[in-house]
């Protein structure tokens, strides 16, 4: 897994590449999110368009990033879910928890 960070209109976008799995060191996302929060960022968008694989540990990582950000009064949203990832979120009722988007501009604009 590789994470790149960029900023668009006050929203920090984390572009995540590769696998988010137990074996791949999924903690990276949580760490990067915390780093952004520490830097004063409140609005975070995880771009998952280039995620090649995710397992339940990876899903858990998204959830724990979400709660971390929410607890700090920020917002975490998701961009570009693959079909499989959306299915994994749906069957564990997480599509009701996460805001997610296909279009980056729309996602960025959605932050209040």
């Amino acid at each position, binding site marked *: 897994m590789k994470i790149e960070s960029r900023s668009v209109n006050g929203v920090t976008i984390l572009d995540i590449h590769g696998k988010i799995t137990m*074996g791949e060191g999924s903690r990276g996302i949580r760490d990067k999110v915390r780093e952004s929060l520490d830097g004063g960022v409140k609005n975070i968008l995880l771009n998952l368009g280039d995620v090649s694989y995710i397992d*339940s540990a990876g899903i858990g990582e998204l*959830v724990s990033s979400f709660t971390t950000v929410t607890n700090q009064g920020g917002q975490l949203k998701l961009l570009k879910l693959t079909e499989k990832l959306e299915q994994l979120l749906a*069957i*564990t009722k997480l599509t009701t928890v996460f805001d997610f988007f296909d279009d980056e501009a729309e996602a960025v604009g959605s932050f209040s």
Partner: protein
Amino acid sequence: MGDEVEKENTGHARELEISFGSHLGYLDLVQELSDKISLLVGFDEDARYWIGLSVRESVTNAVHHGNELDEEKKVGVRFESWPDRLVIYVQDEGEGFEESDVPNALDPENLLKPSGRGIFYVRSFMDEVCYEILPEGGCEMRMEKRLNNQKQGDGNEN
């Protein structure tokens, strides 16, 4: 020369077994093996993906919870290919667990937990799942996927 590589419809299983020291570095390998075998059985791409994920989750649990990452302890995975289904056994050297102790991943108080979704996914994607604590020690999970019933993880299983 063995020109016949197709699986005959003899009505008995073809078996393949793999075992390795408890290390997460083997997860990709086992998942790819699962992909190859489910292709041989005849599952479509979607089914292969979910079977592979189920194997991955189960082996992760065996390595992690069962053998507690102790490389001296082995994880065994057995694939039984039948003409109409694939049965997969995942064995570890741990103490096992009570399935009834596993919290329901869909309960509102669990929805935002960072873990506890693995078995739930396996149950969603496979047709039959059960666990057994082996008399000789260790824990074995059995999961089955039928060929004519390639359900697409609709989450109605829990």
